[in-house]
């Protein structure tokens, strides 16, 4: 393979690769705003300029193709002065409103300004003023003054979603992004432009002003809105789910996620979350209980159960939970089944019709998919959408694992608090059969929740004196031993003995 010299290192490249691609692949940091690996390079922000030895002018590394015998310097005096000069230009008309800007804390303009900027502005002339607070559809707000005109959002709509809602308008330093006069995005992926925006010009109405980033805690996890299993980062603070952003995974979701998935966290922040186990007293009133008391009560209730000895889980239950549920069902003499909704909104990009985030996993484990109402003794339900109400209410369950304290079926005697997907750890199998790890987000949910699989194992032990409750690692090992999972790769790091639980 041909090689190029970057900062004195000989690096291999594929013909047709640009300098920035080779540099990034080899861990050489090159500042950039308008460059994104998924889109055609535009070379307009001019921050990624590097020096090519022997060339009179600095070149933009995002557009410069590698060539044999090229020697690139990213930190030479010329490259640094070019970057610093661009940085100054970017800030001439940029409002210094970091105190009110949602991007503060993850803003590339802040980062590079800290690195390259002057402590004091050399500008003594007034700034150019442009429209602020312009709605782009229902979910996005645009601020033309903060905008650095990198055109990433415009290119996203033209090249990735191919819906073309956005365009650049005007020229000179009046340039700004405008939206189609219909005022609505026709794509389900519009909010990705908020993540793409390297500055705070595009902000999400959902997250606007909600929290400063440095108060938040971020956890890499998965979206369970559908069975695609998009990799995401969940941001939480003080028990509340704050926002979700896609995380790069070229095999699943590349850099993107859909808007419904991103905004589908309402039940996590519900005011009526069940935080402790509850047991119905003789009068049918709910009384709080400890986990130990609840397990004893649940085992008694299950022994009395006549109608059914099955466990019904929703399609988002993790492999660990499914495995524990199978053990529980067999201890009762029944079987574990699952129910998951299907939609009709699949597109050619990410959204799939299968809404059960782990429906594939459940099927691989041999669980029966249930579509009609049939009785079950134990119910494990995260959100109503996954298990249709009729099915759930008709189940006649006596023990339920639920996230919300309202809407518990009347037949239920013992209710265990169930973590939402953001608070649970476990393995999910996406629609393509890929096993991915769901991780409990820190600082989200009511906290102090015991993992459902652990509770089910306890319950099994209570019902069947010979059963020794297994920890997470043992459950995963049991899943791995299943025939259907023989060929499947599991994510590294889920070791035996691990007992990562729900809550924070």
């Amino acid at each position, binding site marked *: 393979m041909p090689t190029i010299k970057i900062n004195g290192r000989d690096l291999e490249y594929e013909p047709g690769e640009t300098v920035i691609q080779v540099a990034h692949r080899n861990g050489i940091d090159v500042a950039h705003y308008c460059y994104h690996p998924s889109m055609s390079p*535009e*070379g*307009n*922000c*001019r*921050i990624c*300029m590097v020096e090519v030895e022997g060339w*009179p*002018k*600095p070149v*933009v590394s995002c*557009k410069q*193709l590698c060539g044999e015998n090229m020697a690139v310097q990213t930190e030479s005096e010329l490259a640094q*002065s*070019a970057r610093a*000069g*661009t940085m*100054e*230009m*970017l800030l*001439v*008309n940029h409002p210094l409103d970091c105190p009110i800007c949602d991007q503060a804390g993850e803003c590339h303009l802040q980062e590079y300004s800290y690195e390259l900027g002057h402590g004091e502005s*050399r*500008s*003594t*002339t*007034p700034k*150019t003023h442009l429209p602020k607070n312009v709605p782009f559809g229902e979910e996005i707000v645009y601020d033309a003054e903060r905008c*650095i*005109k990198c055109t990433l959002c415009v290119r996203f709509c033209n090249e990735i979603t191919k819906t073309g809602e956005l365009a*650049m308008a*005007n*020229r*000179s*330093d*009046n*340039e700004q992004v405008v939206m189609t006069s219909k005022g609505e995005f026709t794509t389900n992926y519009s909010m990705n432009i908020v993540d793409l925006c390297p500055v705070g010009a595009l902000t999400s109405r959902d997250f606007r002003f909600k929290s400063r980033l440095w108060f938040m805690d971020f956890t890499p996890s998965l979206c369970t809105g559908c069975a695609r299993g998009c990799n995401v980062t969940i941001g939480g603070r003080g028990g509340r789910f704050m926002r979700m952003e896609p995380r790069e995974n070229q095999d699943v979701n590349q850099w993107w996620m859909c808007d419904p998935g991103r905004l589908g966290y309402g039940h996590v922040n519900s005011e009526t979350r069940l935080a402790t186990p509850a047991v119905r007293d003789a009068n049918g009133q709910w009384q709080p209980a400890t986990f130990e008391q609840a397990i004893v009560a649940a085992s008694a209730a299950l022994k009395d159960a006549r109608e059914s000895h099955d466990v019904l889980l929703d399609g988002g239950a993790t492999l660990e939970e499914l495995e524990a549920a199978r053990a529980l069902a067999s201890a009762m003499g029944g079987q574990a089944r699952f129910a998951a909704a299907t939609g009709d909104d699949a597109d050619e990009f990410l959204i799939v019709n299968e809404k059960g985030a782990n429906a594939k996993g459940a099927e691989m484990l041999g669980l029966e998919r249930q579509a009609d109402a049939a009785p079950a003794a134990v119910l494990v339900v995260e959100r109503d959408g996954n298990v249709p109400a009729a099915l759930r209410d008709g189940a006649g369950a006596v023990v339920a694992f639920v996230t919300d304290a309202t809407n518990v079926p009347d037949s239920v005697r013992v209710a265990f608090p169930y973590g939402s997907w953001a608070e649970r750890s476990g393995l999910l199998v996406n629609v393509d059969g890929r096993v991915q790890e769901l991780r409990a987000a820190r600082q989200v949910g009511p906290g102090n929740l015991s993992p459902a699989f652990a509770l089910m194992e306890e319950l099994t032990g209570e019902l069947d004196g010979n059963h020794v409750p297994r920890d997470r690692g043992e459950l995963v090992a049991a899943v791995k031993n299943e025939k259907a999972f023989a060929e499947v790769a599991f994510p590294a790091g889920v070791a035996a003995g691990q007992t990562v639980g729900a809550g924070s």
Partner: protein
Amino acid sequence: MAKKRYPETKILSKNFDKENSWTFDVARENGAYTMFEKALKEMTPDQVIEEVKTSRLRGRGGAGFPTGVKWSFVPKDVDKPKYLALNADESEPGTFKDRWLMELDPHMVLEGCLICAYATGLSTIYIYVRGEYPLSQERLWGAIREAEEKGFLGENIQGSGFSCNAYVHTGAGAYICGEETGLLESLEGKRGHPRIKPPFPAVEGAFGCPTVINNVETLAHVPWIIEHGGEAFAKQGIAPDPDNPRSNGSTGTKLFGVSGDIKTPGCWEFEFGITVKELLYDYAGGPLDGREIKAVIPGGLSMPVLTADELDVPMGFDDLVKVGSGLGTACAIVMDDTCCMVEASENIAHFFADESCGQCTPCREGCHWMEKIFKKFNANQGTRSDLDLLEGLFVNIEGRTICALADAAVWPLRSIIRKFRHEFVAKMTPEEQAAEKEAQAEKARETAGVS
């Protein structure tokens, strides 16, 4: 001293003073399309390109790239269609030579285009005329229709099997569309944002296909070159510097224009080599009565200014570069002693700030910033640090952008600040003026002490 008039030549301008010179009949009488016929019937495309290469014809739009070399870049065996985009978006301030050509001799322009089309094997000509030239558009359309009627355009021209169509494409008012890749974007129905090169338009231009982009005047030269041969053309004007193998010289003739504070502004054709002074005094009539020439931008607005003492320089690509300026479009703008250079700077900066396409950061933000600083001076609020700041901005803007618009903004302004610093000092606040005076005195003392 008896003044020797630099002789006018009449090659491009041979029909300018004929009545109805733009009609086919008048043009044909004067030999229009005969050279196209000659090329078509007697020469191969490669011979045409070779002839143009021999002539050392350089682009007349400002950059001066050798035309024959440009044509030879066009790939021969491609499935894609190829295009000629004739750059008639003459939006460089002070420049009007292409308008004269298009209005007074559109058939010569069209003939040049056709020879180019034949040489590079392309079949569609787009003449991108700026929207502000309605008469040029009208006359070019007229010429195209007449040429079609007479069988010099369209299918199977003159029975040779060569087909070519020509259309006028109207611009809508943007300086940047005179930049070749900006022009292509505009031709494709987009905003005129210049593209990064490579790929060069000759390989991947309009609609992703190989495209030749030439200036109107450049192609108007081609019929003469075919008629008289490249050698004859190369003998005119300034020969290449024999000591510099990369020098291309400034061969042939050129339309030179003069406008601004001058008695008889206008456009004349000369061989390269007339000095700026000869042009201004012998042809343009010298300064207005009772005034003196202060500064001249030799080509358009985008070149560094020459002061009154620097005018004894030949108008040629390399010669003007040697004195720190450039030929540009070879249409000089003259400023006399009534002109305040600070106000002129603001005017120039406003032009570039207004016409910046907004794509690259340094140009988008920097041009307007410069204008704001000049405004500050014109409000008598300037400081010495503002001048230093401007010098800093020039460094950050020049050579840091996709196209040359930012460079074009920097060059005249930087030269004005350096050559007319005293005018800027006169527009500073009184304290700053005193400080400047002190600094100058200090400098003088130092110099005296050293020597």
